[in-house]
């Protein structure tokens, strides 16, 4: 064995890590300088290849050498899963973007009502479950380092242990530099992703290099290699499916397990969902990622054969990849291989611990802090917590490796982690596709699955390492044979992992479905369920109001201003005001919802909910403390994503302004026209009277009468314009109370009866029961009735005109109809008559009769009462104007 000096390996390794850091730094610098790096779909696909860790790099060959093609299911699963991405992944992306999801724990908790408890449980499962996986990486790098520098892979000893610890600390430091540069976890780590994609290329190249080396340097081509292997008694047996470890059942379980893992592992969720910049990238990844998996597996069998033939039992099978170039005297190729393996491990450790640290700080630590009145700088504290969490997770991984993992193969360690993470599958996939899944169901499933996982996989692993007596594995706890942790209910003849996965997922899924069916979701949960399950439908984007109570407006406003700044807070409130008929009240639950969604855009859904909840309900946390955390988080506005969103907002606002401006122009033009008409008469007759002092008294009186009437018309018009403006701007005063409908119609009819009699138009009022009370403002209701009656009178033919008023009940509302026998309203005008200054006929030729504002005003009023107003043709000619009003409940 040719070895390399420790200093060389150390220097090259650190130089490589430094290179990664420079790549990440350069990318982030570019983005900070505003030059948006075009993130290609290939970088996305390469970052997904963080799935291939040192397990793949060293472990696959180990499995192939001992169990034949048993290494394959771990790559077949993700390949199958990739086929589902165009729908599954896109759905996740839509949800994650809408709710600003930051981790898999956030995702699952969000689906079941954004509760911290569930997020904490998922975070806990992830942390505990993934520790063995982290240990695996440390073990691989430490073992590689030892082998490369000493030529032996002695598994125990002071130096080896120290090496692993040093590696742990270096990786942790590196991760802290990469992953926690800013507080906001929903922010993308573009530099990190670029570094990960680069690592994926390096590990692939290194693996292909050693594969080609084995095939063409150590042997005369793959044909020769396989011919020799076929002659090897142990190898030839491994190649046949039926004799390689595990039958169809084991294979199916492993495929399902890896399908779950590639979706649910915290680091996979991080790169696939949180770091995704463009939904369209998924399409390319659907074939590029499986292609990557295929390529990196191409030389697994040749390397395994070469290892068995040339090294045999002298080294552990996991060390063959490194051992082959070393044994044949190519230490620098071995160094390249080591760098490839380190790449694989580094990528995994960085992304995984970053994701776990976010979960720990957001879901495990932050909730505790939020309920204590910390006056200190919580924002900075949070950043420290996240950094501390990275260090602690890395050290826990080291401890697991040191005390539980040293004796086991890479793949068997990794599979335990896969099985833990797979416990999220029922709650995750059920949550995406099954609306009836409830939070209680998710709790039950996760707990049941996690407990069975611990019992069948974690405890036996601890026993194997000597931390628990091994006796109970064989005899069962307290001698109960059917409870043996690796043969529950007598299940035998499958691998321990298959056994554990089978029982834990069975318990998990059964508890999830059973408890879900037995419990009811609360309002918020159902709303989130609907949003998740229907995420691919467009209308699912509208938020559903979930707050029962409200908060005083100034308090909400202060919260918004502190995070978004004065201008955007104002715009956010303005947008809400416009959408709700110009009114913003204290204690409006809808406004609370609006504020939450606006905040979520800046600081993520779960934090936004916690903050709004903290001022909405019991308010254990004073506003000041809340503000404090937010100051830090509001930094997010400076980053590019927020900027592009802002540009879009501005563009929309500008378009709205232009539309409004044009509308205002039309309005002004029509208003002035309407004012000019009575003014014309007034001026003309005033001048006639002034110029003709000798007019006879009758004529004089007639002209003065016209002036007076036109002046009244002008006054009425001005009043209506002002009234309309008040209604449109929401400044009108309302006194909504129960109003007796029959009396209101009677009053209106009485006050116009004389006008009808003068015009010779018959006015008939149908019977209205005395106990029909509607919720309305009595004066405004009169205004609507008078407008409609005046309208009908105007269009009814003189002398033979006939107008009928009637009311009919329809469930919880009542419909009032004012019918005339005039010319009716043309089909194309039934909508426009309710727009300001538009009566039937085209804008140019029709002279509006009256002010043209009566119907628009009536529509405003009726809609404010919660009803609607419309016109329909009347059978036998004429128009029927109708409006509905809600009936008073106690009627």
């Amino acid at each position: 064995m040719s070895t390399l000096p420790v200093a060389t390996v150390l220097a090259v390794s650190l130089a490589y890590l430094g290179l990664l850091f420079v790549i990440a730094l350069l990318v982030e610098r570019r983005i900070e300088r505003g030059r948006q790096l075009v993130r290609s779909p290939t970088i996305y696909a390469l970052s997904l290849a963080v799935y291939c860790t040192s397990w793949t790099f060293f472990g696959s060959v180990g499995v192939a050498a001992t169990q034949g093609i048993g290494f394959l299911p771990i790559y077949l699963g993700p390949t199958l899963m990739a086929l589902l991405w165009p729908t599954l992944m896109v759905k996740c992306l839509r949800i994650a973007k809408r709710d600003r999801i930051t981790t898999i724990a956030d995702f699952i908790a969000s689906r079941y009502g954004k509760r911290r408890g569930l997020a904490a449980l998922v975070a806990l499962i992830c942390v505990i479950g993934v520790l063995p996986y982290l240990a695996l990486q440390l073990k691989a790098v430490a073992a590689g380092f030892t082998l490369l520098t000493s030529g032996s892979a002695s598994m125990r000893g002071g130096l080896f242990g120290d090496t692993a610890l040093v590696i742990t600390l270096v990786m942790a430091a590196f991760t802290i530099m990469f992953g926690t540069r800013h507080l906001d976890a929903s922010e993308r780590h573009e530099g990190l992703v670029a570094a990960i994609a680069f690592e994926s290329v390096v590990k692939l190249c290194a693996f292909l290099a050693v594969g080609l080396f084995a095939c063409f340097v150590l042997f005369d081509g793959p044909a020769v290699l396989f011919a020799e292997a076929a002659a090897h008694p142990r190898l030839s047996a491994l190649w046949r499916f039926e004799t390689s470890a595990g039958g169809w059942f084991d294979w199916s379980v492993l495929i399902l397990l890896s399908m779950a893992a590639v979706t649910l592992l915290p680091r996979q969720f991080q790169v696939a969902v949180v770091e995704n910049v463009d939904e369209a990238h998924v399409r390319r990844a659907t074939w590029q990622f499986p292609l990557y998996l295929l390529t990196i597996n191409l030389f697994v069998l040749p390397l395994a054969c070469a290892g068995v033939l040339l090294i045999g039992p002298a080294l552990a099978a996991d060390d063959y990849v490194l051992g082959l170039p070393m044994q044949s005297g190519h230490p620098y190729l071995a160094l390249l291989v080591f760098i490839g393996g380190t790449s694989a491990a580094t990528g995994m450790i960085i992304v995984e611990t970053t994701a776990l640290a976010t979960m720990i700080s957001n879901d495990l630590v932050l909730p505790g802090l939020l309920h204590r009145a910390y006056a200190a700088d919580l924002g900075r504290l949070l950043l420290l917590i996240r950094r501390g969490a990275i260090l602690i997770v890395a050290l826990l991984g080291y401890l697991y490796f040191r005390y539980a993992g040293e004796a086991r193969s890479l793949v068997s360690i990794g599979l335990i982690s896969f099985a833990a993470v797979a416990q999220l599958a029922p709650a995750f996939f059920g949550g995406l596709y099954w609306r009836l899944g409830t939070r209680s169901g998710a709790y039950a499933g996760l707990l049941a699955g996690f407990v069975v996982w611990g019992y069948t996989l974690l405890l036996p692993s601890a026993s194997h390492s000597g931390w628990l007596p091994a006796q109970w594995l064989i005899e069962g706890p307290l001698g109960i044979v059917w409870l043996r942790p690796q043969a529950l209910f007598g299940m035998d003849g499958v691998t321990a992992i298959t056994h554990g996965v089978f029982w834990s997922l069975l318990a998990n899924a059964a508890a999830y479905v059973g408890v879900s069916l037995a419990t009811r979701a609360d309002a918020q949960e159902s709303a989130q369920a609907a949003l998740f399950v229907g995420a691919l439908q467009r209308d699912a984007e509208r938020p559903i109001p979930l707050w029962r109570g409200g908060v005083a407006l100034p308090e909400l406003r202060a919260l918004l201003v502190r995070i978004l700044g004065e201008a955007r807070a104002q715009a956010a409130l303005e947008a809400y005001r416009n959408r709700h008929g110009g009114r913003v009240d204290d204690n409006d639950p809808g406004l609370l919802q609006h504020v939450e969604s606006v905040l979520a855009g800046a600081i993520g859904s779960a934090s936004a909910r916690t903050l709004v909840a903290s001022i909405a309900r019991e308010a254990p946390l004073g506003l000041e403390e809340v503000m404090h955390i937010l100051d830090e988080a509001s930094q997010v506005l400076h980053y590019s994503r927020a900027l592009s969103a802002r540009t879009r907002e501005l563009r929309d606002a500008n378009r709205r302004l232009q539309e409004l401006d044009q509308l205002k122009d039309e309005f002004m033009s029509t208003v002035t026209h309407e004012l000019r008409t009575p003014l014309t008469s007034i001026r003309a007759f005033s001048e006639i009277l002034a110029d003709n002092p000798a007019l006879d008294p009758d004529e004089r009186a007639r002209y003065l009468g016209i002036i007076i009437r036109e002046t009244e018309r002008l006054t009425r018009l001005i009043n209506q314009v002002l009234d309309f403006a008040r209604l449109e701007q929401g400044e009108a005063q309302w006194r909504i109370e129960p109003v007796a409908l029959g009396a209101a119609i009677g009053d209106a009819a009485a006050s116009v009866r004389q006008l009808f009699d003068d015009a010779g138009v018959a006015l008939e009022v149908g019977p209205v029961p005395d106990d029909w009370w509607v919720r309305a403002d009595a004066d405004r209701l009169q205004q609507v009735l008078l407008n409609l009656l005046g309208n009908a009178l105007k269009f009814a033919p003189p002398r033979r005109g006939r107008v009928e008023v009637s009311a009919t009940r329809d469930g919880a509302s009542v419909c009032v109809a004012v019918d005339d026998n005039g010319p009716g309203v043309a089909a194309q005008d039934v909508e426009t008559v309710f727009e300001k200054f538009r009566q039937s006929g085209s804008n140019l030729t029709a002279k509006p009769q009256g002010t043209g504002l009566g119907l628009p005003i009536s529509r405003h009023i009726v809609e404010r009462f919660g009803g609607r107003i419309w016109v329909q043709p009347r059978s036998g000619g004429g128009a029927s104007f109708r409006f509905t009003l809600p009936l008073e409940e106690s009627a």
Partner: protein
Amino acid sequence: MTQKTVLVADDEENIVVSLEFLLRQLGCAVKVARDGDEAIAMIREHRPDLVLLDVMMPARSGYEVCQMLRDDPALRQTPVIMLTAKGREAEIARGRAVGADVYVTKPFSTRELSARIRGMLDLPEA
């Protein structure tokens, strides 16, 4: 000198009354049309010496009436005064384009309007 006939086309009753008064004062015979169609029919029938045309009328706008007048060789010479409550540049230009001789914005000065009518009809000073 024969009495001049003037057609007033407007659908606003009170304005028609005021115009009738002014025209009678000038010694003209007055015919009244309430919409665009009626205006065209009456122009054909009475061959007025002057037409006072409101722009916004039911059935046919004053612009259309004026355009038809200018397209008809027999009526082409009839002078037209357009009356409108729309006083913007674009609308005045449109009135000119369809061949109105004078464009008057409402509310108008009765003295000024009378003077213009007098000039167009070649009437003596009152």
